């Protein structure tokens, strides 16, 4: 347990070391980056090994920080944070492996990368709302420079849009937190204190307060109709950063909704619940339909990310223990699978054939030239469609069953979303890799250029993420054993209806 805070410090130290020493050569930078990512993942795993599941947050560090407003440096973890810390370790490691080919200013790239990662770890481990917000903001700004400096298509636009959406969302959150703080008489920012203060407010005040907090965090989770930053941002970002954005940064929003917005305002949530379910469902279906007609490979994945995050929000909106547990599982699952998909599209395919247009890719018949990416993509596509044996299956099934208990109509709509996801995934799979078998006549004067072979970091990264999704797919209880006790916490009990499965 006590190892968990060190995930933050190690990432920050890694970022500093990268700036100080990493300029020597790209190899030094890569080595340092991989070491930092592995250290973070190992510390997370060590923390998990010493973890005994209990309801409620288990304090790791708790010292006074700013006396006036009662801010404390309070880190704590429960099963939900632990799942997301593990995900961050995985995604960070895989992201470094798929950023192996960053040559230009690699040290600065990885330094910003780990600044972002330290913020992500920090959010997942904060038990003080102020601290959580600080880490949340620390995770926002590096994204701008990562995308604008190292990105591709329309990168300055995509980066600015993404950062302004995130920051506007966080401004709503800030307003909500300060309001809750004021309601509590300005005693402190601990989540428990804020929950006590805000949940005692009359419903008429809880409704706008919940709106500020949930929509503010929801922007980052891809809440429809504030999701439009996600596809453009993901497409503009360099591969490693797309993997992080879809893999962990969108989870920050969903985590904030679950950890802050829901416990603070149970009465506000009750009023918002129908609208939230509708928005989540709209996100699932709308993004799914849009993904169906995209001409750019990466945009398909970008919209599929929004659609799959819709399941997370639907699970939160349904607020039965099973649905929320499924939502947390889906956060993990989507983090791994989206990372894998972006890795195939952005790194394995685009860096070799330099096009992402599906009609061009179709003409290439890539499965012959790139068998390994084709295999990985087939597996990732199966996982993304929610096939049994992969992590998406228990997650989405659990969300659907849990939602059925509150709102059968939502569950039916979301089930239709699963079908749409299968449709756009199969379409893109067929078009991108399995184009016409004989695209180029053997006598053609221009034989297709030989593509670079797949490198070992790519193989290792793909294997890592595949192993994670298969392991959780076969043994979801490994994570559910942490998640379900956490749902028994007094903070979440007023929200959750029904009994734990």
């Amino acid at each position, binding site marked *: 347990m006590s190892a968990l805070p060190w995930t933050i410090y190690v990432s920050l130290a890694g970022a500093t070391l990268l700036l100080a020493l990493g300029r020597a050569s790209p190899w030094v930078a890569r080595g340092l980056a991989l070491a930092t990512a592995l250290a973070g993942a190992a510390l997370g795993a060590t923390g998990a090994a010493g973890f005994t599941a209990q309801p409620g947050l288990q304090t790791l560090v708790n010292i006074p920080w700013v006396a006036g407003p009662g801010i404390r440096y309070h880190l704590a973890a429960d099963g939900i944070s632990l799942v997301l810390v593990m995900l961050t370790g995985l995604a960070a490691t895989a992201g470094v492996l798929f950023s192996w080919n960053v040559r230009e200013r690699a040290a600065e790239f990885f330094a910003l990368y780990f600044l972002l990662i330290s913020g992500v770890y920090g959010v997942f481990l904060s038990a003080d709302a102020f601290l959580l917000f600080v880490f949340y903001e*620390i995770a926002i700004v590096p994204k701008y420079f990562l995308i604008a400096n190292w990105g591709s298509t329309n990168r300055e636009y995509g980066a600015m849009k993404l950062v302004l959406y995130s920051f506007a969302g966080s401004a709503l959150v800030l307003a909500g937190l300060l309001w809750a703080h004021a309601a509590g008489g300005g005693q402190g920012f601990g989540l428990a204190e804020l929950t006590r203060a805000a949940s005692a407010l009359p419903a008429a005040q809880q409704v706008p307060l919940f709106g500020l907090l949930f929509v503010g965090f929801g922007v980052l989770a891809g809440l429809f109709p504030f999701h439009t930053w996600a596809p453009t941002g993901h497409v503009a970002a360099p591969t490693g950063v797309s993997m992080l954005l879809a893999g962990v940064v969108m989870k920050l929003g969903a985590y904030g909704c679950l950890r802050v917005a829901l416990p603070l305002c149970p009465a506000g949530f009750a009023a918002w619940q129908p609208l939230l379910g509708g928005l989540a469902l709209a996100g699932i279906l709308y993004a799914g339909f849009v993904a169906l007609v995209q001409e750019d490979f990466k945009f398909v994945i970008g919209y599929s990310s929004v659609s799959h995050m819709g399941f997370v929000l639907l699970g939160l909106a349904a607020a039965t223990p099973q649905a929320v547990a499924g939502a947390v599982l889906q956060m993990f699952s989507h983090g791994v699978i989206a990372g894998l998909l972006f890795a195939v599209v952005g790194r394995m395919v685009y860096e070799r054939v330099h096009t992402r247009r599906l009609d061009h890719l179709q003409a290439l018949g890539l499965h012959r030239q790139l068998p390994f990416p084709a295999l990985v993509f087939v597996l990732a596509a199966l996982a993304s469609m929610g096939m049994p044996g992969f992590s998406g299956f228990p997650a989405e099934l659990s969300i659907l069953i849990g939602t059925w208990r509150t709102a059968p109509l939502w569950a039916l709509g979301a089930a239709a979303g699963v079908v749409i996801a299968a449709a756009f995934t199969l379409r893109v799979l067929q078009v991108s890799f399995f184009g016409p078998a004989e695209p180029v006549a053997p006598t053609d004067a221009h034989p297709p250029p030989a593509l670079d072979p797949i490198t070992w970091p790519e193989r290792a990264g793909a294997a890592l993420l595949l192993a994670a999704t298969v392991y959780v797919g076969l043994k979801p209880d490994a994570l559910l054993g942490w998640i379900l006790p956490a749902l028994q916490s007094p903070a979440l009990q007023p929200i959750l209806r029904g009994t734990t499965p």
Partner: protein
Amino acid sequence: MTIDYSELLHAFRPEACLVAGALLVLGLDLATGRGRTAERRARNAALLGLLALAAALAATFAAAPTGPVAAGTMLLDPLARVTRTGVLGLALLVLAATPGTLRLPHAAEYVALLLFATAGFTLMAGTTSLLLGFVALELASVALYLLAGFDKSRPESAEAALKYFLFGAVAAAFLLFGFSLLYGLTGALELPGIARGLAAQPVSPLLLVAVVMVLVGFGFKAAAAPFHLWAPDAYQGAPAPAAALIASAAKLAGLAFFLRLLESGLTAPAADGPPAPWTGALAVLATLSLVVGNLAALGQGNVRRLLAYSAVAHAGALLLGVLVSGRAGPGPVVYYAVTYGLATVGAFLVLAVLDGQGGAQAHADLAGLRRRSPLLAGVLAACLLSLAGIPPFAGFLGKFLVFAEALKAGGPASLPGAIALLAIALSAVALYYYLIVLKEALVRAPAPGAPAIRVPAGAALSLIATVALLLALGLLPDLLLRRF
């Protein structure tokens, strides 16, 4: 009323150091400057000036907090100590960066003016008398007018000085008129006497006129909308270090004087009675400044004008802090002013270094700064992100504390709470225009053939110290807050 001169000397030791230092700088340059190179003279003057500032800083720390001194004209309370330390520190940062960056003749006069201005600031920090306050304000202002026009080779500098002077003189006239009405109403020049006099009479139209005059005067000085029109031209034309001083230390000192005037002079009759007569007008100024500053900054293509409009926006947040300081004490708003001053000084000093090597006016002049000088690019990023309110830089916590106090004062439905919500919403706008500048500096490639930039040692030291202070105050705000 007798004055104890030893006590007087004790209270005014920092000012004595500054004035003696200024005279020494001038005298030494007069005596030994002939025949020496301009660079050497500039370095000597700057070194002597730094010594004077350091001595004043030491004297500020050494002075024990006391009650009213010098027949009630000065009060060495925590607000005075923190403000004095703040303005001296900011002046120190500005002056340390001067050798090697500001290539002007008459460096000794420049340093002496800077010290005189700082003496005005430190006096404003502690004064409780309308008369001494006005004299201190004018001492600082006159020195700043001259500093703004110090670059005689550029007509823009003269324009900046003229505009700053004309607006400043009008503001002084308003202030003086307001002060004389207050004196006429109460027969007192000391703030406690004024408060007693006002408590004994009903709110008269004459008092409202006086309050409005005072607010207009301070509004001009602080560049609060709608009295901000001088700021963009002054910031653009003045030499960058002078602009840094105008934007940072002058605001901090003015804030301290303003706070004292409102809180102990024009105070509300009772804590839970009707609000003080200035509440509404101050709220209007704060709201207008926030909206005008943030929206106008969006359209700027010149970094300095952008910083000027962002200063207007920050003035709005400061006024919001003043509005709630009665309940919350001066801590949050002074913290805000100090951290805002630090970030502004850092940004202007980066521009000052660039001025010495090709100049920087338009955003595009910053293109590729990260390649030309990683240090400058890093400092600019830190300062602008602090201004935008991004943790872990101190600007974030300043906003956070002020907004928290504003919301605590009565929830989001109250007047300060609503202004705080508006300010929070506008912070997303602010991030956009700061990122536009940072995009040039950190993302775009430099213009072909743009040379690398050599940062003089003093400026480098000062810039690093600024960022270190921004980080230290951001991570450990109690360093400053527990002084109150």
